[in-house]
Each structure stands twice: as structure tokens, then as C-alpha cells.
């Protein structure tokens, strides 16, 4: 079945699974997991270099093949997040940014006021802004209006693995915006990713679910298949849900077994 591409700021992507680079057991495992996930976009954090500077994570990511997506994880104000994006761009990481403005340390829920402000500024400065937001349809629309290239509602708290806690809100977000909707955070296993895609989401972003799995490479492949299966099921058009059974076999033509 023919499918369209995921378009972010005019750039087209075939893969709808975006993966991270954090918490892997080793750089080799990370590289294999990226391969198995079939990902085209890979998130990275921006942090102080250790001095003297040694091995770089980019020794294990083919930057000709993958598009890097620097994040602003750990930023608690719009100002910090904006400065981090400028640093990322100056570092040569491109203009695609995963914008996080965190509002609370324990839940890592976004500070949507700061997020909206940073989105507006960065979009105006030519960044392709991918904001990590809560599952609020009103905020999703405001982010779109502020110039976001997509909206990335959380399924559940970052790293929690709780899955899509409010599929109905995700569904309403999908009806509220025209930009792509990518579920970011909360995915624990393959079915969670499939559910996001079955709802009609344009993609899924995850890190811990793959990196923290006992076999990260196998989980990466499971996620690739789940995202593809979920997408295909969405496009195929599922049947409606009913409370009672509907027979699959004809009721006519049954043999008469009465004696």
C-alpha cells in the first residue's frame, strides 16, 4: 500500500520511527539498534565536552545517512532552550530541533508557557521546531500557530514505559492540528508504538524503550515492525467496535443433525 512521507519543515522521511542515543549499554549496541530500527532521524543531547575531549558519540553515527535531532533536554526556561538550539546549530547539527522546556523535575512534564514562547522565537529564527508537549489539544494548536513543524505530545512521562495513557486526547490532537503529530515519550513496548500509529499519529519518538530493553537491538526491530504495522492498520481502516458477536461464517447451509 502506497504511503506518503513524513514531512518536517520541507524535509521528507520514509521512516516514522525516531530514536535516541541515550542510556545504551555500549556505542556498538546503539549503532546496531539504530540500524535495526530503520530510523532516519536520531536525537542527541547537547552537553559540555569532557576535557581533554576524547571519543565522540558521532564516531558511531553516520551523519551522511542519519539526520541529527538535537534536543534541549534539561532546559527549564525558554531562554536556556533557545540558547541550546543556537549552540546546536553553530555546532553544525542542523536546524531541526527537539524542543523541550521542562517544568517539573519529578515528572519531566513540559512547561507549556515556556515551550510556546521558545517555539515562537525559534520558528522565527528559521529553526524547524519539534516541541515535546503534553497531550493537550489546545496547546497543540497554539504550538502549531506559533510555527511548530509538528507537535510531539507525550504518551506518558519520559522513560516511564507506561504507554499511551490518553489515546482519546491524542485522537483529538490529531483532529486539532494539520502539522504532523509524533508521540514522544512513554512508549514501553511494541504494542504502545502500534497503538500510537493506529490512532493516526505520523510518527513515534522513543529512547528508553529501546536502549533500556534487555536486547536493545531486538527491541529496535520490534519497534520498527510495530510502527509499520500500526501505520498500515490505520491506513487500512479498522472495523468498528461492537459489543456483541457477528458470525464470520454463513448461517445458511448448516447440515441438519437432528435425529
Amino acid at each position, binding site marked *: 500500500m502506497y504511503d506518503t512521507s513524513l514531512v518536517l519543515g520541507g524535509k521528507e522521511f520514509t521512516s516514522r520511527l525516531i530514536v*535516541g542515543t541515550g542510556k545504551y549499554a555500549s556505542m556498538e549496541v546503539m549503532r546496531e539498534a539504530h540500524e535495526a530500527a530503520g530510523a532516519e532521524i536520531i536525537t542527541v543531547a547537547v552537553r559540555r565536552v569532557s576535557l581533554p575531549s576524547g571519543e565522540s558519540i558521532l564516531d558511531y553515527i553516520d551523519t551522511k545517512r542519519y539526520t541529527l535531532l538535537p534536543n534541549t533536554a534539561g532546559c527549564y526556561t525558554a531562554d536556556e532552550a533557545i540558547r541550546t538550539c543556537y549552540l546546536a546549530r553553530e555546532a553544525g547539527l542542523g536546524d531541526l530541533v527537539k524542543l523541550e522546556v521542562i517544568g517539573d523535575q519529578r515528572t519531566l512534564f513540559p512547561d507549556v508557557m515556556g515551550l510556546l514562547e521558545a517555539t515562537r522565537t525559534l520558528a522565527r529564527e528559521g529553526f524547524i521546531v519539534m516541541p515535546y508537549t503534553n497531550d493537550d489539544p489546545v496547546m497543540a494548536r497554539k504550538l502549531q500557530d506559533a510555527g511548530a513543524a509538528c507537535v510531539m505530545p507525550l504518551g506518558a512521562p519520559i522513560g516511564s514505559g507506561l504507554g499511551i495513557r490518553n489515546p482519546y486526547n491524542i485522537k483529538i490532537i490529531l483532529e486539532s492540528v494539520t502539522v504532523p503529530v509524533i508521540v514522544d515519550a512513554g512508549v514501553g513496548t511494541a504494542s504502545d508504538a502500534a497503538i500510537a500509529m493506529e490512532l493516526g499519529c505520523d510518527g513515534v519518538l522513543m529512547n528508553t524503550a529501546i536502549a533500556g530493553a534487555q536486547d536493545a537491538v531486538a527491541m529496535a526491530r520490534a519497534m520498527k515492525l510495530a510502527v509499520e504495522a500500526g501505520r498500515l492498520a490505520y491506513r487500512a481502516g479498522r472495523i468498528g467496535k461492537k459489543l456483541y458477536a457477528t458470525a464470520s461464517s454463513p448461517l445458511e447451509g448448516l447440515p441438519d443433525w437432528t435425529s
Partner: protein
Amino acid sequence: MKISVNGKPMEVEPGLTVEGLLTRLDVKREYTAVAVNRDVVRKADYGTVKLSEGDKVEIVRPMGGG
């Protein structure tokens, strides 16, 4: 003069440029960015931006994250 680099105090000679600091610390230039006192320094300006007493320098690059 005293400056701070990635949160650590450092004694450097007056008039040192960003370029000079990066060379001295043997920092790879690829995928690296520098901010001095919260402002990003463009790569083209590394050779001309001179550091001053008390400057806070941040040198960053991509790390693992999600």
C-alpha cells in the same frame, strides 16, 4: 587571568582568543560549539573573540540523549 571553562576555573594568559583556548585544550572543532557569557560564538569569530577576566566559557558537543 582567571576564566571558567565548563564550570571549572582556569588560569590563562590575557588576550587569549577562543581559537587559542580550543587549541590549548585540544578540543576537536567538528560538531563543537562555544558560548562565552551565555552568547554563542560563531566559528568564524573564534580567532578574533578575545577572552576577558571572569569570562564563563561553555564548550559543548552532542552526547547521548533521547
